[in-house]
């Protein structure tokens, strides 16, 4: 039984990745894509999903080479003591930055739509406390919570589907208005809402399944998330005309607000708290990954002791930007950090592991 205590099951992995991936980004991707890809936004999301799949495949190739090791241990193995620790520190910084970015956008949305009078630091504090409680726990505990909160996807999907009653297919056409090049270029705007799958770099060794099955499950999660995004984006594009969408930075919420449930008038106020749970899961995944990294860096067994520091840092980073411009800057830096840390560096590591293959085999 000790084995199952430590590892999470395949089903939990499926939901874990979904919860980590779906974040605050989806609320605004229809808006962003309307600017660039116009009617072809659904296609853009599909392409982004395919690119994500390729990256996942790359991760898998890397992780499979080092059975039982997570990202940080691989860093040490490949980079040696000094360089490896630098890499680990870099990854910790990246996870903290992305966690902070999600938290900041989440609180921004909550304040704009629901809690105008509540001070920002209170909301940030509450989010930090929630994530702290989860992230300090063992992976199995987190996985159980994620599984439980996945039930909340049902009302979310129902809310958005109800918007289809107002949909009009013509709003989405012409599909290729922006041209194929712009549709491809727009993938840049969607990638940020796909992030979250990189937690597999950290949790990969703690899954109770064969390597092949792990890949399949992760791909299924990615497929689910991609299709969910396509559904949301297409619904929004069919409900709002593109001139209207240009004015609405969070179309998903606007859509939910404009639904009329007879008794309930502001459905967005119901939607947001449910949504917040999903956001907490995303932030928790990053906080957990960063704490595991710290534990590796300082060669400790348990990551729990580092979680408070991670959460404190996230909290203070999110306190800093006060203007939309500063928020935007954090957004952009997160985006570029992601290119470096989930694309370039893992790629270099796969490449490096090929070169050092012999060395690795000898030491193993």
């Amino acid at each position: 039984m000790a084995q199952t205590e430590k590892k999470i099951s395949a089903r939990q992995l499926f939901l874990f990745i979904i919860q980590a991936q779906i974040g605050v980004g989806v609320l605004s991707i229809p808006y962003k894509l309307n600017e660039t890809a116009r009617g072809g936004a659904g296609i853009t999301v599909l392409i982004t999903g395919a690119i994500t799949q390729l990256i996942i495949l790359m991760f898998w190739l890397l992780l499979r080479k080092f059975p039982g090791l997570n990202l940080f241990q691989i860093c040490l193995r490949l980079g040696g003591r000094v360089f490896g620790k630098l890499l680990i520190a870099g990854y910790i910084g990246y996870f903290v930055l992305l966690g902070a970015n999600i938290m900041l956008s989440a609180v921004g949305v909550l304040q704009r739509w629901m809690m105008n009078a509540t001070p920002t630091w209170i909301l940030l504090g509450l989010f930090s406390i929630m994530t702290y409680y989860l992230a300090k726990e063992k992976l199995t505990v987190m996985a159980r919570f994620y599984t439980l909160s996945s039930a909340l996807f049902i009302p979310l999907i129902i809310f958005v589907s109800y918007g289809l009653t107002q949909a009009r297919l013509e709003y989405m056409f012409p599909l290729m208005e922006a041209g194929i090049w712009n549709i491809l270029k727009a993938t840049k705007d969607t990638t940020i809402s796909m992030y979250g799958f990189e937690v597999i770099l950290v949790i990969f060794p703690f899954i109770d399944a064969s390597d092949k099955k792990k890949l399949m499950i992760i791909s299924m999660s990615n497929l689910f998330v991609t299709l969910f995004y396509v559904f949301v984006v297409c619904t929004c594009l069919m409900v709002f005309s593109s001139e209207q969408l240009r004015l609405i930075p969070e179309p998903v919420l606007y859509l939910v607000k404009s639904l009329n449930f007879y008794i309930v008038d502001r459905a967005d106020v119901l939607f947001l708290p449910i949504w917040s749970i999903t956001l907490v899961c995303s932030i928790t995944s990053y906080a957990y990954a960063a704490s595991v990294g710290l534990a590796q860096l300082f060669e400790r067994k348990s990551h729990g002791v580092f979680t408070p520091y991670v959460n404190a840092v996230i909290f203070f980073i999110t306190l800093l930007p006060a203007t939309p411009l500063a928020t935007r800057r954090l957004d952009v830096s997160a985006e570029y950090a992601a290119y470096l840390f989930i694309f370039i560096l893992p790629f270099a590591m796969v490449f490096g592991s090929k070169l050092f293959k012999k060395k690795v085999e000898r030491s193993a």
Partner: protein
Amino acid sequence: MKRSVAVLGAVLSTAMLAGCWDREYLKDLNLAYSVGFDLTKDKKIKETVELIIPPESEQSGTKNEIHSAVGPTTRGSSNELRARVRGNMRVLKNGVQVIGKDLALNGLKPPMDVNFRDPDNPSSNVRLIITDGEASEIIGQKEVGELKIGEFLIQKIESLEKMSLFYPPETMDTVFKALKDPGQDFALPYIGLEGKEIVAKGVALFHDQYFTGELNIEDSIMLVLLKGRSGDNARLTKKIDDGPLRGNISFNVGKKKVKRTFKVMVGKNGEVHVQLNIKLKGLIEEYTGSHPLTEESLVRVNQELSDILTRQARDVVRSLQKANCDIFGVGRELIAYHNSLWKQKDWSKEYQEVQFHTDVQVSIINTGIIQ
């Protein structure tokens, strides 16, 4: 140590988590149930609200108060109003917004902006109504019979929606959509004051954000049918002037689904043709002629009614084009399926040149319990 941390945690959480900043007590609020906007002579916005005052004792009913104020913008006049009413005025429960004709002629976008921008303003179930006079006069009626003005207006609009005068219901959100859409216009309920009575006059047609024309009640019903929709009932009364069948006939076409074909076609030289046909199934509710409505005579009746309604439908389409009101979304179809053509067109001018081919077919399926 552990115990003291737990105690501290408990104290802190009771202190911090119990409070909530975004709360509003119902007892502190003055809820506006209906709001009216007018344009004053010096181009300012005059806002008139109906506030609901909670009863002082449990037995007595609620009362309403009417207030108005003038300000440079919608929100500006709301702020003026807040200086006049007791306590804080909120529009959370607002169900109907009346707009004076002058304001509607001047464009809806600026005065409506606050409704879309502030999430506290309800939008999904707020009806917009245009009045031929001043909105303040309508709201100023205060009570109609037993009903307060806001309740009265909502009930009136909802019952007229069921009678297919205005259908599907236009709310703040659907208007927002149409306001922002270059290929789609909208129409709003049009009411007026006759003596002391508030009377529905038909619909007010809009182009872009401007009030550009109106339709009377019978034509409004025809417009709803041409959209392929109908409320619970759609009653029309027509006069048949044909030999033995001469007489007035009242029939209801709202009981069965309207079958509609709507096709936008583009000719060789870029001219736009629209084929708009509807098939109606009618139930006869009244017939003042003397000839019994046998199966053979029903054929004649169908023919006659189809002719009459086709003529009426063509008139309605002409009025729509005159008002430049693209209510069927022909422009939207062009954007979607003939995008390059759309880009060449100046739709505000060229909509009037669209050739509509309109046809209405009526078949009577029921004559009541007598022939």
